[in-house]
């Protein structure tokens, strides 16, 4: 990984879906070794932003560069993506191992089928998310949280330089969430850039380097301690919100909507 190339560089991004500006003039950069939480209410455009970075949606205006290239052309810097739960058919006939193996397909290319190195990488990714015992289970027989672990393993299996995770901990139990954050911190320390969408501000804030608060516009961006004040939460959620620190963990209390 060349130290000069910024993983994500977004300038004046506007995205219109169905005639509606879903993202409005968003500028954001994500550095190597940065762990960023993307926060915001339902419909704020968080998934949309990840899709633009992943090359799934094209901007209406503005520029998006991922490792200096057009999004969706990962080149030598693999991108790991974990879609929001519900984006795939959970009854598709495939094993957990088969799902993770898909992460190896792009590097293999057409006409080539997995070899022992690929199988080893899959086993390693599954054990990194604590799902080695699920390897041969069919997708249809997994619980929601187990499925999330398997998709996380797929995002990790290619040793990506950028991870785009859309509500990765939704449905995970407390132990899995702890395991998830320590895993991601480890990757961050190796210089990977990580974006995590979450609604669990209290859990995610102490873990990350930066937070970006989104509500169509980028409401705030910076260190969690500096950004997450009452003013920002109000303009993000459009209602009274307060963050209480309770031991190590901040909790958010949202009053009735105005």
């Amino acid at each position, binding site marked *: 990984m060349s130290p000069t190339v910024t993983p994500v560089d977004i300038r004046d991004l506007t995205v219109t879906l169905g005639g509606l500006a879903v993202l409005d003039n968003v500028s954001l950069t994500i550095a190597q070794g940065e762990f960023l939480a993307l926060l915001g209410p339902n419909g704020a455009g968080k998934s949309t932003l990840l899709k633009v970075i992943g090359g799934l949606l094209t901007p209406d205006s503005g520029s998006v560069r991922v490792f200096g290239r057009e999004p969706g052309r*990962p080149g030598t810097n693999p991108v790991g993506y974990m879609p929001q739960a519900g984006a795939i058919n959970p009854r598709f006939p495939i094993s957990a191992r088969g799902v993770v193996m*898909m992460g190896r397909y792009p590097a293999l290319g057409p006409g080539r089928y997995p070899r022992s190195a690929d199988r080893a990488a899959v086993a390693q990714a599954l054990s990194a998310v604590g799902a080695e015992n699920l390897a041969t289970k069919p997708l249809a027989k997994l619980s929601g949280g187990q499925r999330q672990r398997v998709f996380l393993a797929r995002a990790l299996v290619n040793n990506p330089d950028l991870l785009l995770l859309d509500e990765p901990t939704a449905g995970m139990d407390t132990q899995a969430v702890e395991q998830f954050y320590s895993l991601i911190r480890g990757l961050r320390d190796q210089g990977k850039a990580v974006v995590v969408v979450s609604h669990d501000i209290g859990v995610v804030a102490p873990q990350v380097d930066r937070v970006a608060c989104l509500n169509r516009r980028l409401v705030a961006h910076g260190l969690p301690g500096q950004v997450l004040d009452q003013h920002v939460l109000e303009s993000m959620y459009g209602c009274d919100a307060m963050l209480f620190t309770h031991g190590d963990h901040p909790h958010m209390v949202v009053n009735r909507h105005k």
Partner: protein
Amino acid sequence: MTPSLSLPLAALNIGLPDVLQSGILQYGFMQRAMTAGVLTGVLCAVVGVFVVHRGLSFMGAGISHASFGGVALGAWLGVNPLAGALVFCLLVAWSIGWISLKTQVREDTAIGIFFASTMALGILLVGYSPPLQRELLAYLFGSILSVSVDDLVFISLAGGLVLALLGWFGKELLFTIFDPDGAVVAGIPANRYYFLLITLVTFTLVISIKVAGIVLVPALLVTPAAAASQLSERFGIILLLSTLFGLAATLGGLVLSYLFNTPSGATIVLLITFLFLLASLVARLRK
């Protein structure tokens, strides 16, 4: 490559005792029918697994019905009707694909529009083509007993090409039908593979018209895969089971139609439907 109902009907006048004494494979037309049945049965069953799990069953029915318009157009223009069907159906399939990817119109809506309009075009043109009128039933419901050596060459070459492409791009197709967004982010262009898949489906359907006919061929594509999917949660096993069901239905249906003097396309389709019901029953009992 002109299908005809007269040959099968004449052939079927053979008495049952003769059949039992001599074995049905002594007849050249039966050997060719069996070969065509094996080839198309396997082809449809394999492609069908991708079709069923990408939710393209209605697309299959739509494209095969569109081939009626293509056959009629081919006959009217004086070219080979199946060649006409292939070109016409490719244009229809790509149009449906383009509409569903690039406009607000849903895929099934686009199929519904093409389904009826291409049939209407076919019916209009059949009126201008007396030779096609004579062979109408063969095109609609199949005439596997009139398969010629030329037909077999066409089926083998085109079918072999489809299977080779499926083998070469199989894992990319699997990724894109399961999780198109995940595939795109990983660098696999899901839309291109969608077009590849509907192209392979079109070839498969047109290749199989001779065996099962325009109206019945969607069953050959969809039902073996649907039956197999009842019995396993593994893609590879489903592929294998679907192939076995497809083979059993085409070969078994041919023998049954020979023994009981019934139309072969319809017999094959009813047999595969019976296998589907059986598979559903087994799946229920196992739960």
